[in-house]
């Protein structure tokens, strides 16, 4: 075996070293504790990743950050090991995944503070979910129990829904970017969906890390479609849930919040049917009552009218009677005429004149024998 030692200039050595390294470790994930974390020119990120005995420098851009970082956090740094001619060895960061319960909680708290300041969780931003959606976007892991529960309850409760499901990983390194891409995609569908639902079952902080990532939280907050996020059996809210328009406690609860219950609606429809019948009966009865009232009123009016008329007629009859010349005869008076004219006094008479005397019953002719004073009164 030829173990001749190669002699190289410094730059050549760095180039050969990097070439060898790329061949062996094109990419590597290093797990450790973050130390000396700093951002320069609001763009470049520097920190060391260390354990009890060793420490490696890491270099990257702010775009690779999963959210606010600080010293002491545990992280999995994926990157390319590289020897820089002047700055020495470091890992060029491709992505960072936080690790460990404490770190994840701390990172979520830090991110929560900064996103709260930005107003991402402001209650005023919350939109109402449609009372009855027709088209739903669903982002979840299709093989999960969460998906199965959600669809089962949705189918039992309501029908005629159009559901666009995007099957994503809900945990692990690629989860945040897959979920964010799914949200972006569902927001491009035209006409727009009615609601966008993001669901997963419960899990450890590590399992739920994607739902505390800045990428997913911003994607949920930025959705033009109202969002509903449901993570199973968790007491603490993830940032994605805080950013959502509505949160459900479990995927099953999400289905219950999304759509009404068919059987309940059918019961309500029967009640509405009865109330329709009741109302129309009420309207018809009222109408009938009104008609009979009118009829009574008409009758009364007509009777009153007739009564008034008949009493008028009676009055006139009485009046007529009063003027009836023959009525006086009943009381023993007589009507005297001379030459067919009724006499009221004797002025036109002289003795010997013929007069006709009409009694109540019968009439007679008479000759004036004398004309006396009595008749002047």
């Amino acid at each position, binding site marked *: 075996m030829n173990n001749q030692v190669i002699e190289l200039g410094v730059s050549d050595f760095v180039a050969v070293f990097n070439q060898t390294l790329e061949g062996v470790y094109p990419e590597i994930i290093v797990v450790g504790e973050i130390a000396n974390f700093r951002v320069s020119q609001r763009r470049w990120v520097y920190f060391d990743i260390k354990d009890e005995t060793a420490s490696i420098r890491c270099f990257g851009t702010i775009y690779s950050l999963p959210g606010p970082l600080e010293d002491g956090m545990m992280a999995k740094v994926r990157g390319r090991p590289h020897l820089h001619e002047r700055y020495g060895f470091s890992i060029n960061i491709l992505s960072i995944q936080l690790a460990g319960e404490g770190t994840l909680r701390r990172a979520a708290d830090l991110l929560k503070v900064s996103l709260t300041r930005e107003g991402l969780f402001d209650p005023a931003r919350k939109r109402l979910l449609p009372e009855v959606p027709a088209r739903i976007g669903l982002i979840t892991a299709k093989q999960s129990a969460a998906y199965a529960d959600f669809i089962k309850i949705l189918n039992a409760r309501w*029908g*005629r829904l159009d559901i666009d499901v995007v099957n994503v*990983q809900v945990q692990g390194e690629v989860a945040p970017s*897959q979920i964010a891409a799914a949200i972006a*995609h569902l927001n491009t569908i035209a006409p727009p969906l009615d609601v966008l639902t993001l669901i997963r079952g419960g899990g450890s902080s590590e399992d739920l890390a994607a739902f505390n990532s800045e990428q997913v939280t911003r994607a949920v907050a930025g959705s033009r479609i109202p969002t509903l996020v449901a993570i199973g059996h968790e007491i603490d809210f993830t940032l994605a849930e805080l950013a959502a328009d509505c949160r459900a406690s479990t995927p099953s609860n999400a289905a219950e919040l999304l759509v009404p219950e068919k059987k309940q609606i*059918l019961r309500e429809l029967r009640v*509405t049917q009865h109330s*329709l019948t009741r*109302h*129309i009966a009420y309207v018809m009865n009222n109408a009938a009552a009104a008609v009979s009232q009118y009829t009574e009123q008409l009758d009364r009016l007509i009777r009153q009218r007739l009564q008034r008329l008949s009493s008028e007629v009676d009055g006139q009859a009485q009046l007529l009677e009063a003027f009836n010349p023959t009525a006086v005869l009943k009381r023993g008076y007589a009507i005297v005429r001379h030459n067919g004219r009724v006499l009221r006094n004797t002025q036109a008479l002289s003795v010997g004149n013929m007069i006709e005397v009409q009694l109540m019953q019968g009439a007679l002719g008479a000759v004036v024998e004398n004309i006396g004073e009595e008749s002047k009164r």
Partner: protein
Amino acid sequence: MTKDTARPKPRYEELKAELDNIVEQLQADDVDVDAALSLYKRGREIVEQLQEYLKTAENTVHHLDATDVEGT
């Protein structure tokens, strides 16, 4: 009555809103008898439509994978 299949079927919410409105109008004291009769008839129609909608409705699921949507 020809079935107007071209026009998109009114969604559940539209039918329900129309029904709620009809019941409200029928509750008004001054509703005119002829109006009440046509409201009642339309109300019955909608109830039957909704019952039919609920009993026959199936959900449709379209599946996509994360890889289909990357880079949206």
